[in-house]
């Protein structure tokens, strides 16, 4: 395993993405809520550049106690990585697909030290 420099802390703006190529592997490093997340930039569906799309919060149907539909809302505590090719969605926190837990993005460990951001590849 090697430690790969991604950037100086702050170079990726909040909500931004930097796609790095480390050897044969493309990795998307996402900054969200002040934290960094790194995933292989490859969607298990058709191979799309999954980190190059938008991040969207989970959408919820709000159902009343009497089971009537009230409205939809966003759950901002559950951000999703959305593949730009077909909109397959994955939880930002762990890279697990929101529809099928057996499908997941390859996650890389992110290390922040000495004012810089690294991923372990």
């Amino acid at each position, binding site marked *: 395993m090697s430690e790969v420099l991604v950037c100086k802390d702050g170079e990726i703006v909040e909500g931004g993405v930097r*796609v790095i190529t*480390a050897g044969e592997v493309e990795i998307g490093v996402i900054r969200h809520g002040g934290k960094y997340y790194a995933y292989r930039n490859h969607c298990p569906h058709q191979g799309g*550049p999954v980190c190059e799309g*938008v991040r969207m919060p989970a959408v919820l149907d709000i159902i009343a106690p009497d089971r009537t539909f009230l409205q939809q809302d966003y759950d901002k505590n559950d951000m999703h990585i959305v593949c730009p090719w077909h909109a397959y969605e994955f939880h930002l926190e762990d890279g697990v697909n929101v529809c099928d837990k057996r499908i997941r993005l390859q996650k890389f460990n992110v290390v922040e030290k000495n004012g810089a951001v690294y991923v372990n590849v």
Partner: protein
Amino acid sequence: MDTVNFRDLSVEEFDTTTMLEHATQQAIQRRYEDFFIADIDGHHYETASFAKICDYIEDPVMRDQAKYQGFGGSGIAGANGASQELGGRVTRYPGRRKEKTPPTPHRDITLTKRWMDAIGIDQVCMFPTPMLSLGLTPRAEVEVALSRAYNRWLCEEILPAEPRIKSSLYLPINDPEATYQMVKDFGGKPGVIGFTICSPHYKAVYDNAYMKSYALIEEMGLPLVFHGAFAWGGDQSMSLCNRFLAVHALGFSWFNILHCTNWLCNGMPERFPKLKTIWVESGLAWIPFLMQRLDNEWMMRSSEVPLLKRRPSDYMREMYYSTQPMEMVHNREALELTFKMINAETQLMYASDYPHWDMDLPSTIYDLPFLSEQAKRNILGGNAKKVFNLDPTISEVKAQRLASRPAQ
């Protein structure tokens, strides 16, 4: 510590080639340069050229109306909405609008060739997008005028300028005479490889008024395409759906199920035995359903459909189908059976549907473990070559890739 190359997406402009870089990697890994790939259902957004297309409307009053009113409403309260973009999730929709292209050739040609080359496609049968629902307009004369203007524009400004782009032209189904005239006028134009009935409409395809059009298309040796799409507002059943997923999943299959059923029950394959019919953009799962359903009823009620000399499924096995959007989530066994039921090796043709949100890459076919190499090549291009009588020349990009391959 390793150093790396990087791209900062917050400052990067949208570019089709970059967005599809992973598709290009797939094309290289799978050596698509070794064989011809035809996409029998790619799209462009004709509304981007609407003002120019309007110039081809022959009626001067309607021409002005079209220029003033535009094509249709796509907002949240519109009959069809703009749900394809999935609330901003599918980024190529807004991205493409800002994508830079040179002044020549036509922007549609540049953009189309960019995605074709990235994916590994040699030739495409190009269809419009909003016009797929033009058959639902309440004014038949508007359908006739707009489709005729679009077909003229396509045949004068796009098809002659780019031999890799072909089209199966729109037929104004609400006006049988205009449909016949369209076939007569455009049947021999360069780049015209078929005629298309866009399936959302409320005309019966067995109406006697269409027989001379079918006969002429058959005589020309061209296929008749039924291109699926959806209706939402205005269709009483679909109006019960409040999520686009439901409308899309049902609609794109439903209208082709309807027309295919009527086509069979009225004995059209017996009346037009040489007319090749292609059912496009309805996926594949509907075909086994319809085969089983119709065969079962036919055994009991063949007296109602005396023109059918064989089981409905026997005729369906002689029809042609496009792959996309191929249902392939945890259903490998069902998919394999479907391929077997439709004689996929000779009857199925690859379609990307690019740039739409549910597009499929050639790898959706190439990576299927139950297909032989020959079957893959047939579905990805060989069948289309035969059905549409295409010249199977591979693209310049693929030819260069082939030429630069090291000698073995």
